[in-house]
């Protein structure tokens, strides 16, 4: 009798989802939306995500412009603004991914991991969800930028949004990669600052890194955040006279590096993460 029920159920499922891919896409969207809902209902988190960038752009950008602006040949405010935009979005998704591990004892993630969907769908759903969370933050930062006097055309805003989505997805993939390599939650908590903080500098978030000595240049080239920051700046400064002073590499190179490393991080990170979770 139970067998019949099962068969009926399968045909029903197959009717709404022609194949496994459609089923996984469906699940991915559901998981992503859950994260977004969670964010919308967490007022403290919404507030804190806006405060941090405000402080950085306002004080650092404004302060550095007043101190060095005259001698550098370009305006520091938009430079710091674009850097902080990329960094905030990138780090927001990367850290958000850590909640996959968030106290599995009490968390809902165990419910997700026993569902009959691809592990990639779970991880990508999570990344997409964190991206949805990062985007309102990105919009907030752009608004602050406007308030603080960064001038931008509608086309530039559009470019920032597109680059922002890329930076967010990329941050998520980086997050799962780091999570896959970390032996434990405790290690992850302790090592995350060391993974993120140096990249503030090696990726040139608020300090120009156009002319670095070779050893530092190598470290910088190995910093994933560098390419997200540079893509945001590339699209923001496209066509302006400051492009060559500020932007490190051509847009297509950044897109290529981001695309390839996204794929590598996703696959290796997911495989390592799932294996570490199951082989305790």
């Amino acid at each position: 009798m139970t067998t019949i029920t099962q068969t009926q159920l399968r045909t029903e499922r197959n009717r709404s989802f022609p194949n496994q891919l459609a089923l996984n896409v469906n699940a991915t969207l559901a998981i992503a939306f859950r994260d977004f809902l969670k964010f919308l209902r967490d007022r403290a988190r919404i507030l804190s995500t806006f405060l941090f960038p405000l402080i950085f752009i306002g004080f650092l950008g404004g302060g550095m412009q007043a101190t060095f602006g005259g001698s550098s040949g370009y305006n520091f405010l938009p430079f710091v603004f674009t850097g902080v935009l990329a960094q905030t979005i990138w780090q927001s998704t990367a850290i958000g991914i850590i909640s996959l591990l968030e106290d599995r004892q009490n968390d809902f993630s165990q419910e997700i991991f026993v569902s009959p969907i691809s592990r990639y769908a779970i991880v990508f759903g999570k990344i997409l969800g964190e991206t949805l969370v990062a985007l309102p933050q990105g919009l907030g930062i752009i608004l602050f930028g406007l308030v603080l006097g960064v001038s931008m055309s509608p086309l530039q805003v559009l470019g920032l949004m597109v680059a922002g989505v890329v930076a967010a997805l990329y941050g998520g993939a980086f997050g799962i990669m780091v999570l896959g390599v970390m032996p434990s939650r405790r290690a992850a908590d302790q090592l995350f600052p060391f993974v993120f903080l140096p990249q503030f500098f090696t990726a040139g978030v608020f300090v120009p890194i156009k002319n670095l000595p070779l050893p530092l240049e190598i470290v910088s080239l190995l910093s994933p955040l560098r390419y997200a920051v540079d893509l945001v700046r590339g699209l923001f400064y496209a066509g302006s006279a400051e492009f060559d002073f500020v932007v490190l590499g051509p847009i297509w190179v950044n897109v290529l590096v981001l695309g390839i490393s996204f794929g590598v991080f996703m696959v290796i990170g997911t495989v390592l993460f799932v294996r570490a979770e199951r082989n305790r």
Partner: protein
Amino acid sequence: MSPIIHVEHLIKRYKNSQANAVDDVSFEVAPGEFFVLLGPNGAGKTTTISILTTTLAPTSGRIEIAGHDLVRAPNGVRESVGIIFQNPSLDQNLTAEENIRLHATMYGLYPFRPTYWLMPREYKAQVNELAAVLGIQKEIHKPIKTFSGGMKRKLEIIRSLIHHPRVLFLDEPTTGLDPLSRRSLWDYLTRVRAEKATTIFLSTHYLEEAEQADTICILNHGRVIAQGTPDQVKARLVENYLLIDAANRDALRQELRVRNVPFVETPLFKIELNGTSEQHFTPHQLLKLIDTPLTTVKIHTPSVEDAYLAILEANDDDNANTAAH
């Protein structure tokens, strides 16, 4: 009928651990059965359930659930089972309905829609029906935070049943519930069993929850130490005996020897009623054999609780002895 769960020589050793958390465990569960994994804390119950529900990899052993090999076809297993975890696994930030919706979409029952109102009519009908069963028609769109512990548990069970699993795993589901909620949860589970013929795989350290089981499997230190129906477990492993005493103990001792009744003086006279000795007596037969006036007659028939504790104690003694040698 072929078993719905088949576990053969399951071993699990955690990384950085010297001992096996689950040590060569084998059992079978028939479709529709109420199977109870009983054992004290740390016996390996949750480890076993985590392995059977695919979140933990076994070290070795062969496992098949609903015809799917656990290692080679984990998604087949996942589709066929529902799980109530030891700790609540509802999303506290979502409403009851949103929790159900997420589950339903992840199991591919309905296409994803961001709001309840955009969901298909059949889904709404199903949710209304479930809400009626729980008596939470008014609260179904309220955040889970506002629900009582018992209510959340029931919601989890309802959620885990909407994809019609063939086996429902419950890992110590009543821990932390008050007696009333516990009772109503059991009534509900009994109804589920009757209506859907779902196989129930329950782990618990509460004995009374095992008494209604079809099969009890007692786990201690990762090993199966007793397995069978509650009556079998009781009968096979715990002694029934008669305790008698007389004012004239010498006369009684003499009489028992003459009648060839084996006994132990504790100092009451303890006489086995079943099992080990070659001679079997019912209490009635025994009393008819004795002429010495008795001052005390007590029949000892253990409850399952006694059986359980006795089995655990015996097992712990054995382990202590093995370790000492």
